[in-house]
């Protein structure tokens, strides 16, 4: 069975950086950010974590949820960039694979509050939920009849969706896959991460010595993946390749990473092995880099051990917040754009290296020396997932 690369022929991004992949990359290089208190919902917290809201994302008729609306916007952009005319393909050979956390949960709080208060709410929220699984909803919208599934691996969902979609192409299940991730900000994860004492009331500072925690974000990214043969046959505008993917669970703790990065190292080795690359071939690391003390220490030290003191480490969560199920997909797109542009942006919020990590993140625009990079995601459940991406 093939282990080769799959082609990325289109990308679409929605996040606090704005609408559009190219605009997002430009803003990452420029280095501006504006997290704030939540405006999309209210919460009563002892200490309020800042968030990055994707306020530029308009509603989409028929989307059913903000999560799906952002996924639809990203998919439309990606399809246009790929110059892919779906009617020219067999709809049974086009898949949809999206990572999400809230998108496949029936956590409509208003509905639940009525039920909790024994007020017999109407069933509309439930019907909407049954129609709202993001991957199935996107497939239905586009008339696709291939495999469609939402990946629920918490914060690694977007990365794992891309890894699974790559496997579908290599296994011959599909000719093309719309893959990525999507998640809206809502009260459940906001209150949940607050209860875990993982959020920061200040703009987050990935890998910085004084980091205090994460800022939640939201958004969506969709990448069009095609087999090398299919992309070549239709002279598709190849924007990069997914050359390897690895995932591994820590088997250590429900919410904390293994202190030695056991699973992350295994996932990295697996991804590099699939790509046929060595650590020295990796130009930069797009880290999970949430700015929580535990994540950044484990991840930073693991990257130092694998890639050495010269490793170029960047976290884009300082500019987007942690977009949960969308994060890995957004970051894969950002990674490919940085590889193609030959420069990666600053890690916003990073100033002083943490001696407990021993590896600094980027402080400014940094030249990319090489053609390959990795993008990491770590998640609840001890999930670790790594993509190897290569420029066009």
């Amino acid at each position, binding site marked *: *069975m093939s*282990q080769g690369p799959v082609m990325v022929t289109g990308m679409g991004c929605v996040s606090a950086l704005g609408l559009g992949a190219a605009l997002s990359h430009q803003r990452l290089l420029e280095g501006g950010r504006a997290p704030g208190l939540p405006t999309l919902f209210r*919460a*009563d917290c*002892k200490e309020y974590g800042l968030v990055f809201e994707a306020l530029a994302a308009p509603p989409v008729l028929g989307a059913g949820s903000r999560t799906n609306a952002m996924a639809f916007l990203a998919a439309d952009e990606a399809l246009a960039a790929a110059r892919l005319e779906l009617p020219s393909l067999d709809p*049974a050979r086009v898949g949809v694979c999206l990572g999400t*956390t809230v998108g*496949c949960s*029936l*956590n409509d*709080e208003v509905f*639940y*509050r009525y039920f909790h208060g024994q007020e*017999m709410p*109407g*069933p509309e929220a*439930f*019907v909407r939920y*049954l*129609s709202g*699984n993001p*991957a*199935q909803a996107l*497939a239905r919208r586009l008339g696709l009849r*291939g495999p*469609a*599934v*939402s*990946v*629920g*691996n*918490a914060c690694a969902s977007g990365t*794992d969706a891309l890894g*699974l979609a790559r*496997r*579908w192409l*290599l*296994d011959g299940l599909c000719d093309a896959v719309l893959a990525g991730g999507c998640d809206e900000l809502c*009260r*459940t*994860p906001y*209150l*949940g*991460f*607050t*209860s*875990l004492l993982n959020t920061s009331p200040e703009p987050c500072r990935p890998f910085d010595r004084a980091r205090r925690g994460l800022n939640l974000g939201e958004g969506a990214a969709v990448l069009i993946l095609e087999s090398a043969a299919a992309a070549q046959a239709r002279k598709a505008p190849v924007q990069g390749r997914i050359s390897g993917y*690895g995932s*591994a*669970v820590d*088997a*250590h*703790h*429900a919410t904390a990473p293994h202190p030695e990065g056991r699973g992350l190292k*295994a996932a990295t080795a*697996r991804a590099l092995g699939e790509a046929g690359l060595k650590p020295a071939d990796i130009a930069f690391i797009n880290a999970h880099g949430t700015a929580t003390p535990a994540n950044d220490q484990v991840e930073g030290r693991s990257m130092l051990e694998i890639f050495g003191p010269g490793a170029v480490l960047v976290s884009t969560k300082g500019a987007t917040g942690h977009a949960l199920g969308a994060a890995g997909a957004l970051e894969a797109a950002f990674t490919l754009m940085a590889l193609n542009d030959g420069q990666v942006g600053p890690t916003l919020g990073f100033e002083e290296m943490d001696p407990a990590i021993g590896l600094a993140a980027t402080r400014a625009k940094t030249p990319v020396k090489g053609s390959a990079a990795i993008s990491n995601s770590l*998640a*609840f*459940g001890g*999930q670790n997932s790594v993509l190897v991406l290569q420029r066009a």
Partner: protein
Amino acid sequence: MEILGIGIVSPLGNGAEAFWQGLGREHGPATAERSVATSQGPRALTLFESSDAGLERFASRASLRRMDSFGKWALLAASLALEDAGLALGDAEKRRTGLALATGYGCQNATYAFLDEVIDHGDKCASPTHFANSVHNALASQISLGLGIQGPCQTLSAFEQSPMHALWCARGWLESGTVDRVLAGFGDESCGLLEYAIAATAQRPAEGQRVLPWNEGSFKVGTGYAALLLGPDGGRPGALRLGCLEQLSAPPEQAFARHRAVFVQAHGQRGPGSLHESWMALGNAVETRPFLGAMPTSQGFDIAAAALSLRHGQLRPAPKGSALLKPGDSLACVQADTDGGYHVACLHKD
């Protein structure tokens, strides 16, 4: 792929043998009859509830302290599948074992326990434990923690299509050599909100809307967890094999002609008349729904029932006519989904 071990947590009992014995009865032990109040009046639901009986053989009480019942079912089913395979995983084997899990609804009770705390006691009282248990991959976390599994992991959700996705994922990992074995898991739980929503939605089956499978089965709510330990097809004589794993756009009537029997998960809402009725009329259809109720991941239980039938040389649930299976007989499991697709898994034993 070969099916190396089967672990079941079900209303029929826990473990492959209890499940098999239960399928030999006339119907399943419905554990609760509920009258659910809706704005349109009361609606009767039948619940098929599962338990975690037997988990103490595999896990200490201390290790289960923060685990909810759904997580316990998943860990128990996975442990039973390893036991059924006669396999104790060493350190190297734990790194070469993957987890491919399917759930239709995810961890509902943990989600609503989280919201209960928020509603009753305020936002500041949100529970970190309930939050951690509410994510879809909480079950993967419980299995990996309980059994030390460190391979790749996917939790996949697409309602009734979920089991097929977990099996595709497992097959891809095995055939690419990513792992040596995969624990594939399929399960759903029920909760008060789901039961209410089923009852309330049943009053208004809106034309053209994606809704629950509309027939009597929708009001028989199943719960439980099925785990299959899968390995690559090594050509072993006598091995239980999962062959085709197909998604079709047209009704898979040829499956009924090709296989000795077909386990069906069908509904009554589509096309002229009822898909369920037309399939059952074909003569070699069998269904586990009267024993287990209905849930999005029911196809995983059908595959387990088909595998056990092949193992025992006898079809259960028993169809009309002979239940004996001959060498070379194959079985299929067909799931109709409400988006117009059909998911077919084929099993045989050499």
